């Protein structure tokens, strides 16, 4: 986080239907569980499946008053590698900040495509979720990586919130597998 900044800010870039909004809300609820103040909101627009979209998360130890969109993030997450080079992902993202990309591409390729020369963390969240959950659901898995890099919340908080929110909806097995995917992404290098 930049000097003097009190609010940790995250931008998720994704395509409509990839669950970026869900990921953002899970992260916010996990921070809430730790007694933090949060904000999670999509960059508002008609929700169209497949269309590029953004969603924002703010996490702070103090109440959050602002309602402006995030323009100076501390970390950017790209949920879909086909967005590389299409949307501007590194605006105001300093070199010592972090870009997390769901991709099988290497750092260099991502850097070339985005023009970002700071910390890049590629993770094959789609492959990982397909392998563990049996479905391509990068949104939960990528949270593991985000938590590992930023330490903005504890991994256990994300798992607890996921369990609380989804156990009734998707059952024990799928819940466990999603959490497993989050944990595996957390541990991945």
């Amino acid at each position: 986080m930049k000097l003097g900044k009190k609010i940790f800010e995250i931008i998720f870039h994704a395509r409509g239907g990839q669950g970026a909004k869900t990921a953002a809300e899970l992260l916010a609820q996990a921070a809430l569980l730790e007694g933090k103040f949060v904000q999670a909101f999509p960059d508002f627009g008609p929700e169209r499946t497949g269309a590029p979209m953004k969603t924002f998360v703010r996490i702070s130890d103090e109440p959050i008053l602002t309602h402006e969109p995030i323009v100076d993030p501390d970390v950017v997450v790209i949920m879909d590698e086909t967005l590389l080079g299409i949307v501007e992902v590194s605006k105001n993202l300093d070199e010592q900040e972090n870009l997390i990309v769901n991709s099988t591409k290497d750092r260099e390729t991502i850097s070339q495509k985005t023009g970002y020369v700071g910390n890049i963390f590629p993770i094959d969240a789609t492959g990982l979720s397909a392998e563990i959950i049996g479905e391509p659901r990068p949104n939960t898995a990528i949270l593991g990586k985000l938590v590992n890099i930023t330490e903005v919340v504890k991994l256990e908080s994300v798992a607890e919130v996921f369990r609380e929110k989804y156990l009734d909806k998707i059952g024990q097995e799928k819940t466990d597998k999603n959490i497993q995917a989050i944990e595996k992404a957390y541990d991945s290098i």
Partner: protein
Amino acid sequence: MTDKKKNIALTGGAAAAEALKQINPDVMPVYPITPQTPIIETYAKMVADGEADTEMIQVESEHSAMSATVGASAAGARAMSASSSQGIMLMAEVLPIASGMRLPILMLVSARAISAPINIHGDHQDVMFVRDSGWIQIFSENSQEVYDNTFIALKLAEKAGLPAMVIMDGFQTSHSVENLEILEDSIAKKIVGEYNPKNYLLDFENPKTFGPVSLPNSYFEFKRAQIEAMGGVIGKLIEINKEYSDISGREYDLFEAYKMDDAEKAIVVVGSTAGTAKVAVDELREQGEKVGLLKIKLFRPFPYKQIADALKNAKQIAVLDRTVSFGSVAPLYSEIANATGKKDLQSYIYGLGGREIFKEDIKKLFQDNWENKKVKYIGLK
């Protein structure tokens, strides 16, 4: 467990639904038009899950939604609805019927732009369009205020015998997850109380009629009585705010004066932008600038006297409207000019159709010259 339940994070729409669940209204006619909001989506699920036993009536249009709400309320039910944008436009014919029949209907509104051109984003054009429909209008800054205002407005509507709108900013509040504290169910239930309408159609012992023909020999008197009822709202709201503040521990007033005590330059703003503006004010204060803001909560009826008093020490005032009045000055500007008697206020229009407004925009406008009297536009390309 209790603590955990009290501190939650919800969208403004879901916060309204949480309050509705605790209120558990008798009837709620709704129409899931686009743009609908998370208010109905969330509350309909709560009812379907058996968490509340409101009779949800899915009607065929927003016009019908308000008509059915009027019918249910006149019959003696605690009746509510929710709407937004074009939905409000379609309801517009029925809104003065609700107020003219003096029905204490509560409506949750996610304020948005109106067509044409088509736009589903947030601004205040829909609610400002119906500001003369005889409804009480209370604006909210965030999820917490949406939740609290839902209880406050319900009490106020029932005490005043007038319908009330609780307004949140479309998207900025309706779709943003934010922290809020909610009341214990038992406390919420006590605040809400039993609904005992004085006049209702199903009172067979004392038959009454609602909304009959009233010709030139009586119509004027009905309207005069309605004006009186509206005039009594401010006093009632002050009482309700006090009670609610005591119970909730959160301070509620007709408006919020933020760092106004020694403010030389003050802005007047309404809705979610007040939050962003507070950060701007804080940062300018750190640089030693004497700036402040007045956030309007109650817009109808407009508390002229109290607002004039709150603004009396400010040397310069700018008013931010998120709507327009074509061929006239903007609505909030007009009210503030009326309240203060000052004709040299600065008027700003911002955020139409969801155009973003940033803290830096607000900091910059404090540096502007506010004396040339021309309307200025924030964020216009």
